């Protein structure tokens, strides 16, 4: 009995410790609140994790009323803004296609201030299960802890798929899924136990993709929609370092070529048109119908003397998915020289409407280019535009589409110019793009401020990736590899 009393007193104490003051006579100001992340006016998918945010400024207590335009509401009165998961999900569900309105009141020096209300829009387009990305410090040549992680977009849960603590010295990257299908995965492992991991419908192989006829092991994977081929690049890459304050790293390809890998035969398919000595070919991607291979190509220039003149155009070559052969002509969709710009990371939308790419002043490793922005090529009318709705004064770079082609995720360094964060945005059938929102976290300010890693290569997945780390570890350290061969 005494224990019960003690416990009750403890709970009362805890309850009293949290601020719990109803809003009384607030001073209403016609200003939007300064919040982090800036979620004002964003469009969110139904089922997204609670869009918690922080108030930027001193306060004693916060009060948030969230009202659905159709129905439902949530009320919080606390020292932090953390929406209960089930209530949040229900609110979004009840207001699909419409908006939810936030009214934030802040208590400062025992007085309440009520800000102008703001909305979030609940899209009718669903989003995929999750994101898979690499997290690594934004360093130069050396890396500490890193890994490939999967985030469930409906919660704050993140799990490690592969971390380099498992095999000391290992580096992992270039993960790719076939149109968000987590059952078809390619992943590159570097280090003493290097390999290209291929996991198709539960069957896993570790490949040695370096051959005598190719420059390096295969990187920058992109799946053919049929799942029967994967396009890769092979690169001889070098890093250089800038001297002035606003620049850091320049990543240059000394050579690069494009090829296609055929998993069922363990053969790489080459074309002389994709491995010209005088051209840097890279970033291959298949069209949604699988009949074309898009890639970036630049005229070779002496490095380092003319590195700023290396500009990649967006090109394509036909691909016969039945025979696994290439066309005999390269088409240029966007000529970099005419634009005096350079294209990297082309990504066709799965509905065949667009190709999104990153545009920078030169080069191909745009994450280190402050001027890098996202652009959209409309394949139906050939028009080209900057996605001004999502671009910032800082780097926007790697991006990917959701399976329904109505969401995309992209990397941005807009917060501080160094640590890459992930943003999500919606594109409707008219091609209108919504204001992007930062990947939600339970306490975003605390989380992102402390996070000393960047997000790389975000990919949507439609379901959790099936992987057994311990088994994978044994396979990696076993050094048993399947050697790929060049098809004659």
């Amino acid at each position: 009995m005494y224990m019960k009393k003690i416990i009750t007193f403890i709970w009362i104490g805890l309850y009293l410790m949290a601020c719990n003051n109803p809003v009384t006579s607030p001073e209403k100001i016609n200003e939007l609140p300064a919040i982090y992340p800036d979620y004002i006016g964003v469009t969110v998918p139904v089922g997204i994790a609670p869009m918690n945010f922080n108030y930027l400024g001193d306060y004693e207590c916060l009060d948030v009323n969230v009202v659905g335009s159709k129905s439902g509401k949530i009320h919080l009165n606390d020292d932090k803004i953390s929406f209960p998961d089930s209530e949040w999900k229900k609110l979004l569900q009840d207001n699909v296609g419409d908006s939810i309105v936030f009214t934030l009141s802040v208590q400062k020096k025992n007085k309440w201030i009520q800000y102008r209300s703001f909305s979030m829009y609940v899209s009718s387009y669903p989003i995929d299960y999750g994101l898979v990305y690499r997290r690594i410090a934004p360093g130069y040549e050396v890396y500490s802890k890193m890994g490939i992680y999967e985030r469930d977009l409906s919660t704050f849960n993140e799990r490690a798929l592969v971390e380099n603590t498992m095999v000391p010295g290992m580096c992992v990257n270039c993960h790719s899924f076939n149109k968000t299908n987590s059952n078809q995965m390619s992943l590159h492992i570097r280090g003493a136990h290097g390999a290209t991991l291929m996991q198709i419908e539960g069957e896993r192989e570790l490949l040695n993709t370096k051959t005598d006829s190719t420059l390096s092991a295969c990187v920058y994977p992109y799946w053919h929609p049929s799942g029967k081929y994967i396009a890769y690049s092979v690169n001889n890459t070098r890093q250089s370092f800038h001297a002035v304050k606003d620049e850091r790293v320049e990543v240059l390809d000394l050579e690069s070529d494009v090829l296609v890998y055929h998993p069922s035969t363990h053969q790489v398919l080459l074309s002389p048109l994709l491995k010209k000595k005088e051209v840097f070919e890279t970033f291959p991607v298949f069209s949604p119908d699988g009949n074309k291979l898009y890639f970036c190509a630049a005229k070779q220039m002496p490095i380092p003397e003319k590195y700023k003149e290396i500009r990649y155009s967006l090109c394509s070559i036909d691909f016969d998915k039945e025979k696994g052969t290439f066309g005999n002509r390269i088409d240029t969709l966007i000529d970099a020289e005419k634009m005096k710009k350079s294209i990297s990371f082309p990504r066709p939308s799965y509905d065949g409407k667009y190709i999104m790419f990153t545009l920078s002043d030169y080069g191909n490793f745009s994450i280190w280019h402050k001027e890098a922005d996202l652009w959209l090529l409309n394949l139906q009318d050939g028009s080209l535009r900057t996605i001004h709705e999502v671009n910032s004064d800082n780097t926007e770079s790697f991006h990917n589409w959701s399976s329904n082609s109505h969401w995309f995720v992209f990397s941005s360094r807009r917060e501080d110019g160094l640590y890459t964060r992930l943003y999500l945005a919606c594109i409707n059938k008219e091609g209108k793009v919504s204001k992007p929102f930062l990947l939600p976290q339970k306490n975003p300010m605390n989380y992102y401020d402390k996070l000393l890693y960047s997000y790389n290569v975000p990919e949507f997945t439609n379901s959790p990736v099936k992987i057994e780390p311990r088994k994978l570890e044994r396979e990696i350290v076993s050094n048993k590899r399947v050697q790929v061969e060049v098809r004659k």
Partner: protein
Amino acid sequence: MNKIHINMERKITMLSQRRWKIGFSVILWLSVFLFWGRFYPSHLSYQEQLQLFLFDTDYLIEHLIIPGGLAEYISEFLVQFYYHRWIGAAILATLFVVLQLLVWLLAQKHKAADVYYLLSFLPIISMWYFMTDENAMLAFAVSILFALGTMYLHVSLNSQWRRVLSVVLFAPLLYWFAGAAHFLFIGWAIICEAKLLYQNNKKLAIGGSIAALILMGLACPLISGLWLQYPIFRLMGGINFYRFPSYIPLTVFIVEALFLFFPFLISSLSPPKKNVHFAIILQSLVLIMSGYVLLSSGADMNKEEAMEYDWLVRNKEWQKIIEKAEAKSPTSPFGVTCLNLALGKTGQLGDRMFQFYQNGTEGLLPHFQRDFVSPLPTSEVFYYLGMINTAQRFTFEAMEAIPNYNKSGRCFKRLAETNLINGQYEVAAKYIRILRKTVFYKDWAEEAMTYLYNEKKISNHKEWGWLRKLRYADDFLFSDREIDMMLGLLYQHNYQNRMAFEYMLAYVLQERDLERFMKYYPLGKYAGYDHIPRSYQEALVYVWTQTHRNFDGMPWSISPDVAHEVTDFARIYMSQQNSQPILHTQYGDTFWYYLLFKKK
């Protein structure tokens, strides 16, 4: 009265028995304290700079989610105080004495005789030896402490069922808090239980008990291996006992074995019936000799010297670096880099460079190596030269190269500075906010916060404002094959950067490239010298003498001493078949000797 007298005598005897034991423990404390505080202090500052302990809940949680995390957390908490090296020495001394006392208490539980008290010091000597390795982590010692404490609790339980329960409860808890040191507890339980069962004539049960305990011990790491991404050997051997994740030194297991077996060993010895003092003296001698042998083989004074140089650089003690070099010239590229920086910072590089051992350009601006130690002094050189981006890169890379993925307080501070100087305020703020959660960087961080976005204040900062003026304005890509040209560009950007000029000339002189020296030398007219630095005079006069018979018409103000010495040098060099020893004695501190005799 007789009874009172006898009791008093007994108390005095017990007290004096305890006093001698306390005395030896105090000697141990003082020995450890003096060793680390006086002879090996730079190893402490080395440990401190390779971590960043934060007073933050998330930091604690990060540690608690891995086996051994609590021990690691506690050890990092303690290591942060190594910032003040004497405090670090005291911490280690106290920890070692506590470990020793626990070993003794365990031995006492098995009825060890007091006369063998000193044998309880031997496992501590082995721990001391292990800790002289700069990559040995204090978490190992803290884990052993946890294990010994648990062993003591176990052996204090009288009933068998309580002891069984304690193993079931404590083994997994101990594994989670202290990591693989739980095997010590398992081993202890095995021996205790086997001994008891044997004494109680339950010999058949011994095998079963041992098997059950071993399974218990193995189950903990194996189960954790189902969700933790660490190799099994690390889960079994200790994740955080050694800085390098790829292997666990054999010493770890030997030390663990000593802590496990010594209490039993001590208790198994029968007390001598006479010559108790002789037994104590003999143990003392064994302790002293084993301590001497182990510590002299374990302690690496060359590394200590290098670390001392690095510590002095970190604390900007330029004069002390030079004084240290004057006493004994460093020979490693690491030490020479630090010395040359000190000479550069005090404007003496041109005058005194060759008075000390030089090992070429790797002692000036070493090439980048992918480790967590060598880039640090190099980053300091780049920083003070004004090559802020390169300093930032070397610092970042050094931190990323720390094998156990720790962050570094020293590196964070420098990265905050480089980002502040470069106007990357958001990034600087991120690092500064983190440093505010520390004990020893907090004050600096609070002060640094006031500089954010305050261009005027930064410009007025003695160091940051100055370095801002030195930075490159025009971009280019760093080339480690064109260091002298980059230094030339740096100097030409701001002729007040005399250090850049001196490093540029030092670079070409150490490369023995007199053609480039002659090309760069005239730029010195902008540097505001009131005399030609000694080593430049030596180079100039050497160049002159290659094409002239005398000094007539020499266009530079060469001192008469230099003129005389080069003549003498040339005479000896030309006339003696094996002139090197003589020239080394008389002119070993000159550029001429370096040019003609130092191995390339």
